[in-house]
């Protein structure tokens, strides 16, 4: 995993079908993600809603749905952490968020990745950075540790 990609894994004590619904039903997604969406997720279309997080209710949430492979993969592109009204995020290349579901004895293993922070997804580059620059190695490792925490 490069440090220009976020990856998280979490075990959920619920069947894959339950997790799939929580991810892709726009009302359920909105409850835990804290956004009030205007309508269902449709691949290729922009999902729009109002953020319901206290203090951020004035902000609009936007994401373009990419893949919806039932019980397996849900993905969208968006501009992460776009909460500063002074910044025009539309000029920045969006990142890709992917939720992957896998059945395990305990329920569901959910893997979340967010990639494309550099526009060109090539994850080798940060491994190269770790090799080449001793001064930053520890801090980059700290990120990886932080990023790979599971819950």
């Amino acid at each position, binding site marked *: 995993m490069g*440090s*220009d990609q*976020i990856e*998280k894994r*979490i075990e*959920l*004590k*619920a069947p894959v079908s*339950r*997790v799939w619904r*929580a*991810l892709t039903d726009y009302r*359920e997604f909105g*409850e*835990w*993600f*804290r956004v009030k969406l205007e309508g269902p997720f449709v691949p290729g279309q922009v999902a729009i809603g109002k953020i319901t997080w206290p203090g951020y209710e004035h902000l609009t949430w936007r994401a373009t749905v990419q893949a919806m492979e039932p019980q397996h993969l849900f993905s969208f592109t968006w501009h*992460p*952490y776009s909460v*500063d009204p002074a*910044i025009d995020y539309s000029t*920045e*290349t969006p990142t890709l968020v992917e939720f992957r579901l896998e059945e395990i004895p305990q329920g*569901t293993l*959910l893997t*979340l990745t*967010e990639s494309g*922070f*550099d*526009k*060109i997804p*090539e994850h080798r*580059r*940060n491994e*190269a*950075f770790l090799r*080449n*620059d*001793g*001064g*930053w190695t520890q*801090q*980059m490792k700290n*990120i990886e540790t*932080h*990023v790979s*925490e599971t*819950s």
Partner: protein
Amino acid sequence: MSQKRRSSTAARRFAHAPVFAALGDETRLALLARLSEGRRCSISQLTHGSKLTRQAITKHLRVLERAGIVHAVREGRESLFEFDSVPIEEVKDYLNRISAQWDQALSRLKSFVEARP
């Protein structure tokens, strides 16, 4: 070189992609490793011992300069390049914030699906 290129880090636009992209090349990483030792270097010094031409090194330095990771400082007749850690600190900070948000969101998702079968 130009005055614009020497503008202060405080004035820099908040843009992360150029920083990530600038770090995505072995030659530039090697240049950064050298410059991050703290000593300013000229293009000649940076070209010395490299298989690349002066023109190629210059091109890579410009990419780093546009991302704000190095700055050119005029000293006499030549330009010296120095390392600036701020943009890299900023992108690390940015990833940490996004990462923390995902931790919170996934934790809410976990409670949600486990409490409501």
